[in-house]
């Protein structure tokens, strides 16, 4: 059975690379699944507005990024905290052939949903394996 996998790079808190602005960056939790036609990905990025999301697929690397807004924290004094906030970034190596022009991205309630349709060549290859 041919295996096509998304392989994540990096750890929980993104280290070893600097963003242009100071501050810790976090890797969003993801669900990834595969159907015959597409790869699907959901990433939890609470606090990120749809306009602050960036999705990129180039040279076999999918990167998803989201920036949180700080406006909601102005003039507030933290009293009790259990979680920290920060921008999100995570990258995956995609070994599948993806039809880049038809990637669909949707951001709803802090969750990024990506549909990465497999290219015709990738689907054709799969059919050949099944009948040989």
């Amino acid at each position: 059975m041919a295996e096509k996998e998304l392989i994540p790079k990096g750890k929980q808190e993104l280290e070893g690379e600097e963003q242009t602005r100071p501050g810790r960056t976090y890797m969003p939790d993801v669900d990834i699944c595969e159907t015959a036609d597409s790869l699907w990905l959901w990433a939890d990025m609470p606090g990120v507005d749809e306009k602050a999301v960036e999705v990129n697929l180039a040279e076999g690397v999918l990167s998803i990024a989201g920036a949180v807004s700080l406006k909601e924290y102005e003039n507030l004094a933290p009293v009790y905290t259990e979680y920290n906030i920060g921008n999100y970034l995570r990258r995956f190596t995609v070994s599948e052939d993806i039809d880049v022009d038809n990637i669909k991205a949707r951001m709803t309630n802090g969750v990024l949903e990506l549909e990465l349709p497999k290219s015709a060549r990738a689907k054709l290859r799969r059919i050949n394996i099944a009948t040989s």
Partner: protein
Amino acid sequence: MALFLDPVSGLLSLQRELERAFENPSGLDLGVSGRGVFPLVNIFSEPDGYIVRLEIPGVSPEDLHIETQGRTLTIKGNRERRGPEGAGFHRRERDSGEFSRSLQLPDSLDLMRGEASYKNGILTIRVPKREEAKPRQITVKVT
């Protein structure tokens, strides 16, 4: 220590402030659902009350229920996992299912006048202070 966030290092300042409050909790006792129960909570104060914030991405507002009783604020809901039929999962890092968390807030807050909003996966509940709890000037009459 209200936060003033400048555009360049604002994020780092905020992260440091949040971490400082994490390491030195202000003695707020949230009751039975103490630390580390989903969903995690951050509590801020502003001049007129408290702001309770929880990160709960991917919940429909109809699936979120917020109740108050006395000093207790309860947040309940259900995170559903969506996905196409017949798909094989490569990764499952996101939790799904029902959650419920109760917080005991200080008496000085008027929970009955709390207001909640949900945006970009963050639930924000504003709870004002009771009128009696607000600082008040007593004018001195000269007789």
